[in-house]
């Protein structure tokens, strides 16, 4: 402290601030890698073995669903015989005439044996993949669209619209969606198809997605860029669709991945209960498991293999959902 200074300064008790260091922190490092929520999430995902395992399983399942013919040439439904009647059939199956094919174990060309109706278990599993996957995807897309639109409107516009939509959501939420689907499906006895069952499941599954998106929108709409967007004159709709929604979508992606697994389970459960897809037109794992339950003691293979296929598919999507959640939601990562 200089003695020339007439003003007596108060003594400083804090260390000198290192201006150079702070300046470096504030500077925008242009050369650095670009980063945002999605890039960070992808970098996080890439480093997880669970992500790669589930991704490989899912890609394989999708491939099986699209090209079942690559894996089996045996038709899943036709040519089912209860027992070998003719010499031609005996040569085809490689067993003597009179052998019971129903619930028979593996034979050459039929690696997993036969169902009670004498159909090839492996072929039915392969052809059932498409059914499960389509229902899963349709339900997920349907639920995501309904949830996003209703949740975003409720959250962004607020007021009476919010109260109204959320009360409707409460009502739909109050009905366990499989029970609702049971009622809907039992009203459609003859014209059941993939679309009907997907609608029946999806129509009651959207409120949780809508609630999650709404709370995220409520958070995002407080942020500065939303105010800025409205300040430069964008309409409320434009702001909602271009700025609010893309920034609130992450939790929906998480819940949708797990929801896809839930939809596949729901389809199998409905088919198992007997209100699913008609057994003679659609291959469905739930149907096959349901049909096999009477043979649990005599031919467990008819029950075990479709169950494994179903559980593995669901497992893959749940694993994917968990890794995606950890990647997108740092808070969830903290409790791991």
């Amino acid at each position: 402290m200089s003695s020339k200074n007439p003003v007596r300064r108060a003594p400083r008790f804090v260390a000198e601030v290192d201006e150079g260091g702070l300046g470096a922190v504030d500077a925008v490092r242009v050369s650095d890698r670009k980063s945002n929520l999605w890039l960070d999430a992808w970098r996080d995902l890439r480093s997880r073995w669970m992500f790669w395992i589930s991704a490989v399983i899912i890609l394989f399942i999708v491939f099986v669903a699209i090209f079942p013919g690559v894996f089996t040439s045996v038709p899943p439904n036709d040519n089912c015989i209860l027992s070998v009647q003719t010499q031609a059939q005996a040569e085809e199956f490689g067993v003597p005439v009179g052998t019971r094919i129903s619930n028979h174990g593996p034979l050459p060309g039929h690696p997993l044996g036969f169902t009670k109706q004498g159909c090839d278990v492996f072929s039915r599993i392969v052809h059932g993949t498409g059914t499960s996957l389509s229902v899963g995807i349709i339900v997920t897309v349907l639920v995501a669209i309904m949830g996003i639109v209703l949740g975003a409107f409720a959250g962004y516009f607020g007021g009476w619209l919010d109260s109204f939509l959320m009360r409707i959501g409460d009502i739909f939420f109050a009905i366990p969606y499989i029970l609702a689907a049971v009622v809907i499906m039992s009203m459609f006895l003859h014209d059941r198809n993939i679309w009907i069952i997907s609608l029946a499941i999806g129509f009651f599954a959207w409120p949780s997605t809508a609630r999650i998106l709404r709370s995220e929108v409520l958070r995002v709409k407080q942020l500065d860029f939303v105010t800025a967007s409205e300040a430069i004159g964008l309409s409320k709709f434009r702001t909602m669709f271009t700025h609010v929604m893309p920034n609130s979508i992450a939790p929906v992606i998480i819940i949708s991945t797990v929801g896809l697994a839930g939809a596949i389970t729901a389809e199998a459960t409905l088919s198992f209960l007997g209100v699913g897809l008609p057994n003679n037109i659609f291959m469905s794992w739930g149907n096959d498991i349901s049909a096999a339950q009477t043979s649990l003691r005599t031919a467990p293979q008819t029950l075990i293999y479709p169950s494994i296929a179903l559980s593995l598919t669901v497992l893959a999507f749940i694993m994917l959902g968990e890794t995606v959640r950890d990647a997108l939601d740092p808070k969830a990562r903290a409790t791991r």
Partner: protein
Amino acid sequence: MIWYIIRRLLQGIPVFFGSTFIIFSMVFAMPGNPVLRMFGDRTPSPEQIAALEAKFHLDQPFLSRYFLYLGDVLQGNLGTTYAGQSVNEILARTFPTTLRLALLAVVIQLGIGVLAGLIAGLRKGGVFDNASLVITLLIISMPVFVFAFVAQWLFGIQLGWARPTVGPGAPWSDLLLPAIVLAGLNLAYVLRLTRASVIETSQNDFVRMAYGKGLTRGRVIPVHILRNSMIPVTTNIAADFGILIVGATVTEGIFNVPGVGNELFKAINRHDTPEIVSIVTILVIVYVLVNIAIDLLYGVLDPRIRYVK
């Protein structure tokens, strides 16, 4: 607290009317004659048609039909099945069994789930924690009927520890295996939720404070950590209950437990739509009431929630 109870009960009213109305509409707002559609392939006798039309008041306009139907349900007049049995009698006969099964399942899922979740959360990253994460992942990915068949095949048929199907009168010992299956999925959720909640709570200052005061682990863990971790677990019981209802239908069907779920399972297989609708309506009403009850419990546990809004 009294205002919280009143507000929550008032909120339940639109949900109650809305959900019953939706189920009613699903049956009666679809094109075609609902009575004929209920019979599917079969041709009903004129008496059956007349009985159903009278039951559902088909001569009245839509909205008054709904209120008449709801009035019937609330007065305990649930109609009859195709075979002419009274749905009331069926429910009176089967409900106690389902209640016992559900009670057993809830005890299992909360007892084991909370305890295992607490241990996993306290020893985060340990062997038990990792094992519980893998096991719950496997349980969550197994649809309840697959889980039921695995349990039935393994414990009922291969090992012979339990009866594969429930005997007459459904004694508690026979209900144990179905209850474990029914509890399985929720147990996995309860475990994971408790674990996450325990980890989060343990990081709080008041926990460090409690240890700093010199309290023992035996005091801090049950009183400070576990109690505060139970709040999200309690709220989730409501959602769990929905899984429980659907799970009971499947589990009771597989283990042949003489309960409500089994009746619904059989009704579905018989295409007995009037019975399906009656049972589903009752289950939804029970679900709504349980949700309200759990919300009230939530208010008791967490005083903050009473003053929100």
